């Protein structure tokens, strides 16, 4: 309980710290608006151009970017700082964290308040609202619960991937580079029905880089395309659970890597 109280206190302080830099804070809000417009345009533009993408109609496809964006927004808000581990290692901050009586992972997360997450989440909620209003599906409690589970699972899966990169950074600081690529890949390929891609490429995005489990598989299950995703139905349906498992695994990896952390520059 004490941990929660400290976390809450630090978060409040961090939020205040964001207010300290006036220009920066106002800029973030202004820029949030640009971000919002561009993402929605980007998500809808391809759908209107390529109707019937992969056998999905456009209202169904919209569910993919909406799920991904919402999961991503929550990730940025709750666990997004894991992204900056590479830089924190290079600046020697991890060494300071190791001296304090609080888990390093939590200190990383409490490093600052992600003002930009507010923008991300606003966009995502808007997009999700749009997707749901255009959807012809019957939104039963079961479907809604599955969607929520999928969003949380997607968030955890994304967190797991970045925690994996962060763990690698602890041992090889240069791995930071892969984090940026990962982000780009998630952003570029996370929003399509992956069955438009050749089998090998789709397979890579399923088993190599498990991008498909973030939004594509859950959306396929919800819209009744679950049987033609290229993976067994049960596997696609278990996406949210896989997110949880992946995150737990990543945290174990993190703990193991932290024990083997050697620091930079001696």
């Amino acid at each position, binding site marked *: 309980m004490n941990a929660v109280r400290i976390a809450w206190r630090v978060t409040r302080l961090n939020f205040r710290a964001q207010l300290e830099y006036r*220009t*920066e804070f106002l800029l*973030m809000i202004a820029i949030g608006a640009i971000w919002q417009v561009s993402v929605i345009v980007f998500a809808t*533009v391809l759908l209107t151009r390529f109707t019937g993408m992969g056998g999905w109609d456009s209202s169904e496809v919209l569910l993919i970017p909406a799920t991904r964006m919402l999961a991503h927004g929550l990730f940025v808000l709750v666990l997004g700082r894991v992204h900056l581990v590479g830089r924190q290692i290079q600046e020697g901050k991890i060494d300071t964290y190791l001296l304090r009586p609080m888990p390093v992972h939590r200190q990383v997360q409490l490093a600052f308040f992600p003002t930009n997450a507010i923008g991300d989440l606003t966009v995502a909620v808007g997009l999700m609202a749009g997707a749901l209003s255009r959807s012809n599906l019957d939104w039963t409690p079961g479907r809604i619960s599955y969607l929520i589970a999928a969003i949380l699972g997607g968030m955890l899966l994304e967190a797991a991937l970045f925690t994996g990169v962060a763990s690698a950074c602890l041992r090889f600081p240069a791995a930071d580079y892969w984090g940026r690529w990962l982000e780009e*890949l998630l952003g570029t390929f996370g929003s399509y029905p992956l069955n*438009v*891609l*050749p089998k090998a*490429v789709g397979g890579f995005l399923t088993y190599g880089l498990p991008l498909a489990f973030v939004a594509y598989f859950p959306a396929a299950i919800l819209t009744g395309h679950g049987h033609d995703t290229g993976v067994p139905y049960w596997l696609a349906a278990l996406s949210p659970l896989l997110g949880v498992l992946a995150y737990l695994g990543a945290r174990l990896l993190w703990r193991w890597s932290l024990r083997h952390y050697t620091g930079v520059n001696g």
Partner: protein
Amino acid sequence: MAVLHAWRTARVTPLGELHTPPRMTAVLLRLTVQVILVASLWHGLYSHTGTTAGLDVDQAVTYAVLAVLASRLRELDQFSGRDTVIQHMHFGTIVYWYLRPLPPQRYHALRALGEQLYGFAWALGGYVVCLAAGVVEPPKSAAVAGVFALSLVLGQLVLYFVMLVLDQLCFWTVRNNAAMLILIFAQNLLSGVYAPLWFFPDWFVTMSQFLPFQATLSVPLSLYIGRIPLSDAAGQLAIQAVWVVLLFLFTRFLWRRAARRVMSQGG
């Protein structure tokens, strides 16, 4: 002597990369995977569509792959070299830029030039491989190739100035990391890296015509694939040139303000 310091400064980035072979391997791998993914994505998207937004599948794939290659031109890991304005502001080492007889603006431009030339070597290598593998189409004519080359140079100049404005912002807000990411995203979106601007709604295309971003990539690539016909090329090149001049004046103004700010705050 001026040539010498230009050469030394310009080669900082390539040299840094050569001293870190794993980074080069990473670039190669990333570029390969990205080209394959992008090419297959656009083939996939077009599988039920003939021509949309005035682009057929070959044009779209060529555009997308060239966009991936071109974004290599200035996408290096500058952070690892600790020579970005934001890092110099953070570590307080920006003072050294103002302690040397080389003006900071020239140093910055030379560093970027070296970086862009190094990136160009990568892009050119990738282009030759893609052309040989039939992933991209060759330009329709020698005239198209020439206009494209000219437009690409102008586009790179515009890109340099846009990135420079982002760097210069750091003189005023040290903590604009997230803002930078978002602006870079805007640059990628509005320059047509993620998807050709031709796919976007009319209002979006109109809006981006008033912004410098499309001049960086969308214009040269559209000239290459023939989406902008040669007859319209002169006008487009002129617009690019106007952006170069405007941004040059604007960034020069910002450099002066930045110097004044450093001189009044002490870096």
